[in-house]
């Protein structure tokens, strides 16, 4: 059986898949050396930025006309097996109006404290995303309003599970894990605000009070 003949002309690659996002040139013009490098991977543009200027760059990307990345799709982090390779914090941005995506990465040297500025002041949705990165990787976010664990419970003492030096079954023995889990207070992972929402009714904004007063049926009592 012979191999099928190779096609005479290869399929033309859609130009958009190889082209770097136009935001990168604008970023280089605006921030210069703070833009460390850029790559195109699977059609997505990835921009590596310096940790010190990352918050400024993200704010600029959100507010500048022509960029308008008004939707934060995800905040996450990556650690690679190579111990010398830095940890990366990843911001996936989307401009809903322009239908454009951009990925920003901050490389963090593992020998230094793992700390970046929170983007909670730019996108409120970053709240839980940054808590998850903190829980799983131990990266702290300066300026985050409520940086607590979100997936593991408050008193979890084994470390940050998605780090490469974290063993799959955890650091402690199963008996110790079971003992600590059973000793945990199931209510402890709620913040005080979440537990006291009924008491805090009179401090809520007017529109929220109105919405709560309507109740399930949707009209004022």
């Amino acid at each position, binding site marked *: 059986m012979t191999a099928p003949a190779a096609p005479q002309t290869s399929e033309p690659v859609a130009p958009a898949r190889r082209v770097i996002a136009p935001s990168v040139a604008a970023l280089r013009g605006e921030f210069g050396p703070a833009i460390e490098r850029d790559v195109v991977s699977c059609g997505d543009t990835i921009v590596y930025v310096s940790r010190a200027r990352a918050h400024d760059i993200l704010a600029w990307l959100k507010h500048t006309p022509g960029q308008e990345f008004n939707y934060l799709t995800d905040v996450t982090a990556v650690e690679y097996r190579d111990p010398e390779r830095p940890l990366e914090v990843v911001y996936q941005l989307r401009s809903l109006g322009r239908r454009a995506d951009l990925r920003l990465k901050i490389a963090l040297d593992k020998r230094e404290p793992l700390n970046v500025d929170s983007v909670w002041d730019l996108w409120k949705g970053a709240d839980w995303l940054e808590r998850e990165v903190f829980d799983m990787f131990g990266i702290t976010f300066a300026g985050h309003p409520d940086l607590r664990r979100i997936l593991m*419970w408050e008193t979890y003492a084994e470390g940050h*599970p998605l780090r490469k030096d974290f*063993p799959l079954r955890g650091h402690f023995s*199963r008996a*110790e894990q079971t*003992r600590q889990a*059973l000793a*945990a207070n199931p209510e402890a992972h709620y913040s005080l605000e979440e537990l006291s929402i009924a008491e805090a009714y009179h401090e809520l904004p007017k529109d929220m009070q109105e919405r709560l007063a309507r109740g399930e049926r949707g009209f004022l009592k």
Partner: protein
Amino acid sequence: MGLINPATEHPEDETSVLSEGSPNFVTTTLDFLTNWARSNSLWPMPFGTACCAIEYMATAASRFDIARFGMERQSFSPRQADVFICAGRVPFKLAPIMRRIWDQMPQPKWCISMGACASTGNVFDNYTIVQGIDTIIPVDVYVPGCPPRPEGLIYGIMLLQKKIRGESIVDEQIRKEQPLGPDGLFLPAHRIDELSEPFGNSVHQTRSS
């Protein structure tokens, strides 16, 4: 199997046995009556955490219909439940909640561990999953499968009914609450470590990976 009252079926035995003053005859009859009632009116408390809960719903729905076994009422309150059915994997974060629900259930109570995850932890031999709920609460019947088909769960329920029919109301031990020990554990620590040992393919994992 219907309810037979030996007292009315065999009146001559009644006089002979009772005249000897043996308590065994009365106790056995009460056992039979109690176990018959208990095993045919179990109220399940579904604790569905994963895909096994889908199979549990199928078991409860019209095609398989566990109402045929006296489980007409799904009790979503632990205080009005007899059978705790854990359907799905249990993370360590859920362990204190599950223990509290089990403690809230009044006696008599039984537990069915439905599926491989609840019984052993299954493939989730990692830092989040309890390696078998029997390290936290006592379990009466283990139903294997990933997930078990409704027939499998019904077979487990019938096994539990069979087990209940073999119980005795004068045996105080089987209805005794089993709280956590002074070390905060349900089983001794070495037993939990032994039960949680990796098996099958997961032996090849190393603790450092």
